[in-house]
Structures are given as structure tokens and as C-alpha cells.
């Protein structure tokens, strides 16, 4: 996704940012129509993101010659890099927990996928950015990292930024069948 104003679509893999935001908005609106309860909508958005992340991580690794992450800080950097690569809007990484197992991805004064959005009052529990959480979760799961993500601040709900809180749970171990490795 290229940001507005810059020469858009220089290569075939880029798509106009406004189009993406409007399309995502239309998609959320459609899911709201289909599922009605905000909690159910959140679940669907998370699933949608998860499916994106699971597929995207392969593409990301194929495009970037990146070594294995040795600690969670490097993982955070990769996630940051992936957002720059796919959304063209890089979040800042920070707000680390003392144990180093939790950090925040923050987009100040913006929401990378939400523009032109207004929340009706009855939809306030709706997590518009849930798809991003799902994508991170799906992508991390494919490289054997189990994470939990919460939306700490939402710019669309009058917060000063969009902030996703990523928490490391555990490493997923391979259950290798006999005869492999």
C-alpha cells in the first residue's frame, strides 16, 4: 500500500492506500451486517487477519533475506519491518515490559488501515484494527512464536494513537513425526 501523495503504484504489487482503506471499511461494514454483535465481528476480523498472516509470512521471508531471530526484540523489529513493507506505514516499537516479553507497536495520530471511519455508539466495542492483531498472531505462529495481542489505544476512538500490545507467550515446539530430522 502506498501512502497518498507519493507516486502511487510504481510497481505492480502496490495498491492505492485510499482504496485499501475504503475497501476494508466496506468489508467491516459488511461483516457487521452479517454478524451484528460487535464481539462476533471482532472474532471474524481476527480470523481474517490470522489467515492473512499465515500466508504473508512466507512471502515476507521470501522477499527479505533475514536470519533467525535470536530474541524477542529482533522479532519486534521484523514485525515493524513487515508493516513498513506491506502497509507502507511503520509503527514505532517501544514501551517494553521489564521482563522484555511485551512491547507496543504504535502509530502516532493515525490508524494505518482506518480513515474516514465513524463509530456509531452501539458499535463502540468493535475493534476496527483487530485484523492487524490477527495478522501478527498468524505470522508469528508460523515461525513458532505464540503471542497475544491487545489493542491498547485506538486512534479512531479518539485516542492519540493506535497502539497494539504484543505479548510473548511461548515458543511452539515442533511435534515431529518419527523419521524426520
Amino acid at each position, binding site marked *: 500500500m502506498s501512502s497518498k501523495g507519493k507516486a*502511487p*503504484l510504481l510497481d505492480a504489487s502496490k495498491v*492505492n492506500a485510499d482504496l485499501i482503506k475504503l475497501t476494508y471499511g466496506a468489508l467491516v461494514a459488511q461483516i457487521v451486517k452479517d454478524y451484528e454483535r460487535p464481539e462476533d465481528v471482532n472474532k471474524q476480523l481476527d480470523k481474517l487477519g490470522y*489467515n492473512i498472516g499465515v500466508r504473508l509470512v512466507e512471502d515476507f521471508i521470501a522477499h527479505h533475506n533475514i536470519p533467525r531471530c535470536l530474541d524477542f526484540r529482533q522479532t519486534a523489529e521484523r514485525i515493524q519491518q513487515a508493516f513498513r513493507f506491506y502497509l507502507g506505514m511503520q509503527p514505532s516499537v517501544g514501551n517494553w515490559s521489564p521482563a522484555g516479553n511485551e512491547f507496543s507497536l504504535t502509530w502516532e495520530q493515525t490508524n494505518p488501515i482506518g480513515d474516514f471511519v465513524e463509530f456509531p455508539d452501539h458499535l463502540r466495542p468493535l475493534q476496527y484494527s483487530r485484523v492487524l492483531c490477527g495478522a501478527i498472531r498468524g505470522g508469528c*505462529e508460523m515461525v*513458532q512464536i505464540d503471542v497475544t495481542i491487545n489493542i491498547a489505544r485506538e486512534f479512531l476512538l479518539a485516542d492519540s494513537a493506535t497502539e497494539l500490545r504484543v505479548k510473548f507467550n511461548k515458543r511452539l515446539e515442533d511435534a515431529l513425526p518419527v523419521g524426520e530430522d
Partner: protein
Amino acid sequence: SLKARKHARNNPPEVEKLDESMKRLNVTPDVVLSKLEGMGYQVGLRLIERLLKDHQRFKDELEIMKYICTDLWKYIYDKQIDTLRTNNHGTYVFTDNTFKPLTFFSVEGVDQYYAAAARFITFPCGIIRGALSALGIRSAVSAKATTVTACVFEVIVERS
């Protein structure tokens, strides 16, 4: 990434394919297409409002169609519609020989291609209908993938 691939093979993620979802939710392809079209309509409606903020008034219907084929298409797909034909009685045919959404997926055979293509070209139909609607033109828009990557849109203006 070898490790990742191995991991994927041993622990397949719970990714559901579209066909499976449709079966589980008991939804027909028609319902999917009509929802996609509806989403396209909403996008077209809003997109054209943004694009035409400082644009001067259009002279006539043909000029609007030309705008859609050139500026709007360029904004969305980075290229113009290749040909615009009209019978001068409210039917317009747009042909895009390399329609971008049709260049990014692969299927097993020709039959699947056309079935899958339908899902990719319904959304743009909605965009066109939405854009026209924002400009005060009620229309019916249909599309057909003709050959691989080529797509023909037919716009029929509804006169009241």
C-alpha cells in the same frame, strides 16, 4: 524458512478455504457475489466523492464514462481502460485487456479460472455502479472475463 515450512506441514494452521467456508455457512456463490458487489458499490460511492472534490462539472454522460475509464481506473488500477464503446443509447462497454485483479491468482484449469475470476470482477462492477450513482446515474453493471487477464464491463444506464 525451511523450519517454518516444516512447522507448517506438521502443524497445519486452521486456514479455511473459501469453498469450505461457503459450505459451512450454507452460502451460495450468488450470495457471495452480491455481497462483494455491494461492498464495491460503497467503495465506488465514497471514492468518487473524494476524487471529484475539486473537479468541475461534467458536461454529459459520455464525459462521466470517460472519466471513469481514465482517471478513476488509473487511480485504482494504475492503468486506463483500453477501449470504451457505446451505442449512444445508454449502453457502454469498457474493455480492459490486462485487468490487474485477474493477474494475481492461479488456478488448476480454465473452468476454475472463470469461476474464480467472477469473484474478482464483481467488486469492480460495484465500484463502477457506485461511482455512477454518486454522479446521479442509475445503472446496471455486469462483467465478463473474456480471455485470461482480459475483462469486459457492460454498463447499462437506467432511464426513468
